[in-house]
């Protein structure tokens, strides 16, 4: 039974965490740690992506290895839009629209495949998208990336305030923070909805779900498509923040990394997806940030070992906690029930 006091403390905890996140840039802004704001923003974009993929992979259990392609579609749409003089808000909507419509078309044709076959086809699609951006010089300027010489991607303007003016990246940090809050609330509402329960049913046993009268094909397509809303939006923010996009940012490796975030955090768990993103996207940066401390203990050159350590962390976590760091409540109760029965 969930007690009222538990609920209260959970809300209090979340409120405190949010407060800390809001205050954080103001505290480090004038210190030498100002780069942390930028690092946190980058991690934030990964959180958005992980929350998005969580619908496909975490909730519905569809193994998608080409998710980064939809981030790329969002980023390139926004970049091209901005070069032609459209505002961030218009580009944001356009990026989401492009990302969603492509994902819908892809989903209609490939979602009847299952498991590893779905994985390989989405991987193929991801690589096709990247290579196409790489080769369509007239549209995307190929490997050199957008913008071309003489063009530029505009910074985000909110009510006339230019986010690019503050070199500490604080404006973008808050923009991404707001986007994450919206995404998290949306994810939570969807997870608890009829759709959310249906997705979990499909993930656990597709045939049983079908026999219980669920429109499995439609529901899978829905989860698959909703994922791209987040990817498209994150892509638009990325393009307007970096003001430079190349195909290099959207390699297969990135798709794998996002899958790893979700599995590491716990499939279908929203806090899990966030934690996974923070750990995997943040740990190379954190290891870099703390390298002064570690190089004093372990000797210079430690900084080069950060990816090696990152790999070791992945193997250890998954070996000792294969259900993920923060498994979803639903799954945890299932596992506990099983234990009681057996």
């Amino acid at each position, binding site marked *: 039974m969930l007690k009222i006091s538990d609920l209260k403390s959970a809300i209090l905890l979340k409120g405190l965490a949010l407060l800390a996140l809001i205050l954080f840039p103001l505290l480090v802004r004038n210190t030498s740690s100002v780069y942390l704001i930028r690092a946190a923003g980058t991690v934030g974009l990964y959180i958005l992506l992980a929350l998005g993929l969580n619908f496909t992979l975490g909730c519905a259990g569809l193994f998608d290895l080409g998710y980064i392609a939809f981030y790329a579609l969002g980023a390139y749409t926004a970049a091209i839009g901005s070069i032609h003089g459209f505002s961030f808000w218009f580009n944001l909507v356009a990026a989401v629209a492009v990302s969603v419509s492509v994902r819908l078309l892809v989903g209609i044709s*490939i979602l009847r495949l299952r498991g590893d076959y779905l994985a390989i086809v989405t991987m193929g699609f991801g690589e096709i998208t990247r290579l196409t951006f790489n*080769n369509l010089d007239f549209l995307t300027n190929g490997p050199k990336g957008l913008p071309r010489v003489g063009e530029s991607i505009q910074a985000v303007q909110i009510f006339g305030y230019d986010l690019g003016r503050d070199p500490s990246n604080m404006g973008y940090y808050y923009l991404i923070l707001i986007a994450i809050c919206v995404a998290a609330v949306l994810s939570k509402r969807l997870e608890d909805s009829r759709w959310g329960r249906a997705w979990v049913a499909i993930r656990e046993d597709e045939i049983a779900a079908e026999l219980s009268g669920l429109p499995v094909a439609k529901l899978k397509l829905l989860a698959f498509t909703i994922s791209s809303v987040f990817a498209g939006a994150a892509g638009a923010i990325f393009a307007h923040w970096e003001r430079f996009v190349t195909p290099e940012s959207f390699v297969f490796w990135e798709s794998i990394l996002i899958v790893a975030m979700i599995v590491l955090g716990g499939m279908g768990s929203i806090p899990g997806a966030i934690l996974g993103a923070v750990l995997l996207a943040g740990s190379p940066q954190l290891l870099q940030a703390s390298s002064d401390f570690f190089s004093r203990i372990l000797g210079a050159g430690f900084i080069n070992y950060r990816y090696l350590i990152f790999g070791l962390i992945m193997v250890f976590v998954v070996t000792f906690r294969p259900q993920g760091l923060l498994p979803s409540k639903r799954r945890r109760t299932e596992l506990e029930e099983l234990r009681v029965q057996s």
Partner: protein
Amino acid sequence: MFIQQLINGLTLGAIYSLIALGYTLVYGILRLINFAHSEVLMLGAFIGLGVLTFFPAAFQAGPLGLTTVFVLSMLGSGVLNMFIEKCAYRPLRHTLSLAPLISAIGISIILQNAVFLWITNQSQTFPEIVVPTNFSIGPATLNSLQLVILFTSLVLMVLLHLFIQKTKTGKAMRACADDLEAAALMGIDSNQIIGITFLVGGALGGAAGVLNGMYYGSIKYNLGFLPGVKAFTAAVLGGIGNIQGAVLGGFILGILEVAAAGYLPNGSEWKDVVAFVILIFVLLIRPTGILGEKIAEKV
């Protein structure tokens, strides 16, 4: 022109086939995509380079020297692959299906960075152990390097076929691929058989790594990724888990890639796209791959 493309395609396809066999053997038994296989391939190439660097006598020894390089590199990669299985996959065998994938990615990062940090982060020239001489076949030319690649792969494939079909261990491997639990109940030590499967798969990957190094003339810590992904594509194309399928898929992919590079406008830029487009279409029309069997869904 056509014959020339065919020869180049077969050469490339032979390398893909060898790598694809490593994926398919493992998948056949454990239903696991061994993402670290591309790193096994890369380390195979580095072991080959190491042997050639420390024993320059291998250059003078002709075919015997070449065989030594292959045997040592295959042994090294095979043992490495077996070790990966023991550390990263075995503890996770009875867990959620995606956990071993994450662990494989972790291993992949570790191995790449180990080479990057402790061996070299630069591209290394792979010594020319086979001096290329050209033979002409009608309008086309076949060089001795391509001949060595084709010959080596064919020998290895025949050996694999004999091993799986004729030996007792091979029979046990087939039994495990059919049904791991039932095989264990019949007294087959499934852990040992899985270990051997990784050994064999890794050895083939190591040989492919050396061939890859010889073919392109240079090796680097991240060389495994692209051939790895393409060989995996080839394995799925042929029907993953199916040994003949992996060989067939590898050759088809190699030939199509070379043909796309040769015949399409701007083809060398688009050849990878063509490979993936074909893969998607094959899977949409025939989701189990060309030679894959349809597995009935169980409730």
